[in-house]
């Protein structure tokens, strides 16, 4: 059985704009899926539905076979969403406070919150920054902090919305290594990006969105050759193979 599934998922905004339309997608536990598409293709709207932040106009999202609307808190615990701009999601004044926000929402005992915060920060290598303000961290470290904030909820699925945007080369490498560690640890990864050249070699599946519709889904080797017609840059150069598409050497 798939860990998360969407059935005819449709979102139409109040002004009539179609965000996504009839998206049917099944994701199995432990998969590493890349969702690509041009700007405005509906990737972010789709991600927000998986975490229950948006309510579908039509269709539904099933988590472990159950509609996520049945228990939204449980859905948000299981499906961690890392936003595109971490600066805009920080609610804590220090790094530790930021990570503690999620576990405190779950009403865990204070001692357990502290140990989760320590463990989450250690996982992403941010322990020594725990008393600093999140806003003074570098771009790469801010992304790591956003990931730590999500990890503190102990999610099974982690959705990363454009995690490489605005990062320099070392920042991309840091985040990519972190994502691979999370995948190796058993998390299901959904990575939204249009920068396929940075990461495609590590994914098991590539899904393409175009104008709010899911237009391609399959092994990266099979799907990648048609991406340009959907507004995504063809990452392969002549003679190059998908397994070479990574910024990790």
């Amino acid at each position, binding site marked *: 059985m798939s860990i998360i599934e969407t059935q005819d998922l449709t979102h139409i905004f109040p002004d009539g704009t179609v965000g996504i339309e009839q998206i049917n997608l099944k994701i199995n536990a432990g998969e590493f899926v890349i969702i690509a598409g041009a700007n405005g293709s509906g990737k972010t709207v789709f991600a927000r539905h998986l975490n229950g932040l948006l309510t579908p106009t039509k269709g539904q999202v099933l988590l472990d076979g159950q509609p996520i609307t049945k228990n*939204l*808190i449980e859905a948000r615990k299981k499906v961690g969403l890392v*936003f595109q701009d971490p600066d*805009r*999601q920080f609610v804590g*004044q220090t790094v530790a*406070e930021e990570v*503690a926000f999620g576990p405190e929402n779950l009403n865990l005992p*204070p001692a357990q919150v502290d140990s989760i915060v320590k463990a989450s920060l250690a996982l992403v290598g941010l322990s020594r920054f725990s008393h600093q303000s999140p806003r003074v961290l570098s771009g790469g470290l801010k992304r790591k902090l956003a990931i730590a904030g999500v990890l503190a909820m102990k999610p099974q699925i982690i959705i990363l919305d454009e995690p490489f945007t605005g990062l320099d080369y070392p920042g991309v490498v840091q985040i990519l290594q972190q994502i691979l560690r999370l995948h190796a640890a058993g998390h299901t990864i959904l990575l939204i990006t249009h920068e396929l050249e940075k990461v495609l070699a590590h994914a098991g599946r590539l899904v393409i969105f175009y104008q709010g519709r899911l237009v391609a889904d399959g092994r990266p080797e099979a799907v990648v050759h048609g991406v340009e017609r959907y507004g995504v840059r063809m990452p392969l150069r002549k003679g190059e193979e998908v397994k070479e598409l990574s910024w990790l050497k």
Partner: protein
Amino acid sequence: MAEMTLFRYLHRDTVLHRMDGRLKLGSMLLLSVSASLAGALRHYLVLFCLLCIALRVAKLPWAALLKELKFFALIIWVVLSINATTIPGDPIPNLPLPGVTVQGVITGLRFAGRLINIILICVVTTGTTPLRTLRHVIEWCLRPLPFVPEVRIATMIQLTFALIPVLFIEFAEMSRAQKARCLEVRKNPIKRMYYTVLPFLEQTLHRTDQIVEAMEARGYSEIRTKAAFKSKTSDWLIFTLCLFVFLVIVFTKRG
């Protein structure tokens, strides 16, 4: 992004940073009331000295804080000038400035002393207390009150404190961006405001929306972890000292 130090938590390992949040807030409340009640010069001096010692003990960065307090210096100067020239009384002998009265200067100085002490109280409190602790203390204080949504109020206060410095920085950044496109050339001040204040308000609302989404994404709930407070002897000693100062000011004022 350059970081403001004023009214922000600055982590250090000091007795004030480790102090029980409830007693710290209680102490600061006592000092704030003392600052409001203070009438004589000795009252202001006692409070000022106590707060300077607190700043020193908390190892807060003096130089950076003084630099950022420039804005308040301007307010103090304006209020002092207005008081000195508008309050009727005896003119100061041999002063070339017309209209300045002794009573006006004294009233202005009183206001300045009060404001300086209150700013220092805020600096010490915010510099040594993480917002999370502040939120827990507010929740703890409001919990016994019926029909008061203590968690919601505490979260609102926490978010306000967290967002104010960020919004200041964003407003400055937006103003710079508009200046870079020669906004200053426009003569009409209303038009100038239109191009800075309105986009800023729009951005603030947008940012608020994003924060709400981010909080929801991590399952924000009003049934949250409650803090476990612990108070030490040193915390009670600091509280007792503040209570003593408060009582001295109250009784000497009455006397």
